[in-house]
């Protein structure tokens, strides 16, 4: 695997980890958060 492939893969893995972490944290705090028309403060702050 060349360097550019490793870089791109790292980027995807980091994005996956960050998005996943934020999604799980948000769902724990406020179930349903981020869904269509969710009215929570988090989504509308």
């Amino acid at each position, binding site marked *: 695997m*060349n360097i550019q492939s490793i870089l791109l893969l790292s980027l*995807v893995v980091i994005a996956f980890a960050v998005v996943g972490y934020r999604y799980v944290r948000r769902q724990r705090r406020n179930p349903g958060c*981020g869904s*269509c028309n969710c009215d929570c403060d988090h989504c509308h702050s």
Partner: protein
Amino acid sequence: MTLNELKIGQTAYIETVGGEGALRQHLLDMGMIPGAELTLIQFAPMGDPMEVRIHGYELTLRIAEAKEITIVEQEQATAGGHLQFDEDNTTFLHPGLGEGGHFHDESPDANVKPLPANQQLTFALAGNQNCGKTTLFNQLTGANQHVGNFPGVTVEHKYGTIKGYPKAQVIDLPGIYSLSPYTSEEIVSRRYILDEHPTAIINIVDATNIERNLYLTLQLMELGIPMVVALNMMDELEANEGTIRINQMEALLGVPVVPISAMKNEGVDELIEHALHIARFQERPQRQDFCHPDDHGGAVHRCLHAIMHLTEDHCQQANMPIRFAACKLVEGDHMVADALGLTQNEKETIEHIIVQMEQERGLDRQAAIADMRFQFIEAVTQRTVVKPQESREHIRSRRIDRILTGRWTALPSFIIIIGLVFYLTFSAFGVWLQDLFQAGIDWFTEISDQALTRWDIAPAVHSLIIDGIYNGVGTVLVFLPLIVCLFFFLSMLEDTGYMARIAFVTDKILRRLGLSGRSIVPLLIGFGCSVPSVMASRTLPSERDRRMTILLTPFMSCTAKIPIYAFFSAAFFPQHAGLVMASLYFIGIAVCILVSLCLKRTIFRGEPVPFVMELPNYRMPLAKNVMRLLWDKAKDFLQRAFTVIFLASIIVWFMQTFDFHLQMVEEAHDSILAQLAGFVAPIFEPLGLGDWRIVTALVSGFMAKETVVSTLGSLFGGADLTLIFTPVVVYALLVFCLLYTPCVAAIATIRRELGSRWALFVVAMQCVIAWLCAYLVILVL
């Protein structure tokens, strides 16, 4: 003579209000008190419910409730006459309440104890439903909350900070008509004000409907919390040649009164200054006593003051405002009685006092308290309000209503309007936008693919980017225009005020299904998304109706399922895509009706709650609000696409590309995904859906419905689906997708509203019904 016998256009006066419990209290709180003048406007197309005009606004109620109200055609002179203020009309100088400068007395005699300058201030924004609270909240905080023209758009507290004042927090409470615990929103709002102890209250009052709005104002004043009254829609009142003498009203009420127009952002800065002042200096309402010794012999006055003396110590211990507690004890509010912890002897003494008052006043306890408040309001408005001519908005509403709620035109109009909404979304405007979007996404995928090839990216990473992420997220993203379009039209129905008419027109039909007309709103919002629709059910005043509506909303096909329908319709039914879509929506509605009939006869026996609702004037939605809503919907959808669908796409790609030894697979059926799905597949075998890829897609749909399409896109790649499935099997799949478990966000919301057991019940019930209906499709077709 009872109210249901009144002829259209005829005016009469209420003699007695029958019934009992919370509904009767609610009717009284809405101004249906003995002596009140009302006019019958119309009956709904099916003869029930009816619309009456009382205290200058339109109210709906069913024939069954109308039969409990007796009326007389002539106003009856009441002994004791009407309450009058002693003050001379000409002596009202500006009272300057809630203002600094020479109006503010900080001398030791004034006993002013200002809060520290750095203390956090909390303002409760309270008012009737549909009086502009959320508009004012947005102006105060710069927030982007959705504003509707339907009673009860706000269903939970929303917090924000007043612009330019980081230490001042404002809480937008759900709209309420009184502090009586009738709906769950009223309980929520009352509990917030009583238990959370906001520093001050901003009471927003609709100036065009002032009598009914002041009813809540008086109850808020009884709480003894610093308060400022914001007279909203003053521009509309003055445009119709009405006005309010602000100085007089401020002097008579004993709280600062600020005229504003929340929509035009007029008077809001002045309101903020007053609010900050009364909060900081803890300036409480100067008047909390609305009974009068001369009012009908002073029976109510003596009763209330006797109870206030009797319960003073209990109120101090329970930290409850004394005047508020006395009124609620007379009204028979058990929540207040329990909180005070009265002894048996005290309870009996209070009961004797109340019975004595009822005999002297000639009214029962609830009616006497409501009458006392409306007497005071009438005295205030007689002195301070110059009534407008019938407003242009109201004339326009009456004209529109002749068609939209007319006897022969209401139902056809409803069908045409809803049909038009779906046609514009799925056949005309939405599809045109979708094609544009598709072209853009295809172009972007192509240049990305070329770039990855040029940079010599490893095949596995190349596949992850193009087959996994682009294919997954892109397949869903293309439906953004359709979803935004449908939400746009649904919000237009709500913002214009038509949604309330739909509830009025469809009440009788829904009652046969065991629901109330008000349930139509959550059900219609369910066509957009189940999460807000479940939350919108909070406006329903009965727990039975609320539960039943929540169980039924997931049968309404939400916008997240549109990608699934569109994906398969394009492949299998290109000539009849519209028809297939429409049939799915109708199947959803039909199953909803059948399930509601079953629930009505099993779990939810009994009658739906009465239909007492205000019909707002039609209004043209503001372009700013519409644009804000569109942006919110687009943002929410993009957020979902780049969070849950992005994650699901990568997980699905990984599981379909690798086996349990984390080796890349040659054939997809050796993958982790294929082996896991193989366990569940036999259940779907009778439906012709035993393919592991379909099962995987359906399971992934639990996260979000859009992922069904993204997963199918990844798993089937560019394969020709028409060679793999027959149209009948695909239609069964569509029916299954329409009816099976709601997504995790909707389940979480149902769990929050009804608890875990009901949430599990919804999942199980819907999966079973979906399987049976899909099987029926296979058998019939």
